[in-house]
């Protein structure tokens, strides 16, 4: 049974996690497919969680991230965004920079200060 705590553990134990509909090999939604393609182009290994594996994953994920849709990309435990943001950040190079920065530099740039 997935809970928001399981989601938190998943995105903490794995540096890059993509929650999608379907699998890496067989995405079951165009948006999930697009996000997987982008992450494949980035080239860094990433963990994929198929929200259809368990009906409890989706509500737990939404509660944890306060983000209503799938896919959702997490890097260093932080929600980066859905497929639009992921693609936009890939095109601008921000995504590659963030991923290359390593897990030591996990603070978001100056939104809270």
């Amino acid at each position, binding site marked *: 049974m997935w809970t928001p705590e399981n989601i938190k553990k998943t995105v903490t134990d794995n540096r890059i996690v993509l929650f999608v509909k379907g699998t890496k090999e067989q995405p079951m939604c165009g948006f999930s497919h697009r996000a997987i393609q982008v992450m494949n182009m980035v080239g860094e290994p990433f963990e994929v969680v198929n929200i259809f594996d368990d009906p409890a994953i989706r509500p737990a994920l939404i509660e944890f991230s306060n*983000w*209503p*849709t799938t896919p959702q990309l997490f890097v260093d435990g932080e*929600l*980066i965004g859905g497929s*639009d943001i992921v693609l*936009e950040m890939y095109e601008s190079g921000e995504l590659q920079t963030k991923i290359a920065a390593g897990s030591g530099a996990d603070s978001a740039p100056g*939104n809270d200060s």
Partner: protein
Amino acid sequence: MLLTTSEIQKLIEESIPGASVEVADLTGTSDHFDIRVSSAAFAGKSRIEQHKMVQAALGEHLTTTIHAVQIKTQVPE
């Protein structure tokens, strides 16, 4: 009840004052939309926060009648 593009535009404009909003119905079936929003209210906010503002404007519609949206936000130059 399905929303029209102008209803979606109105919801976002009411929720984010001063926003410039463009909405396109991608499939002609009133459930897949392309939404572009430009607003000074986005200044200093992360993309996640900007998108959340747009999602909030759509409220329950996003989890009921709307199957998918693609959102692009920007701060006007």
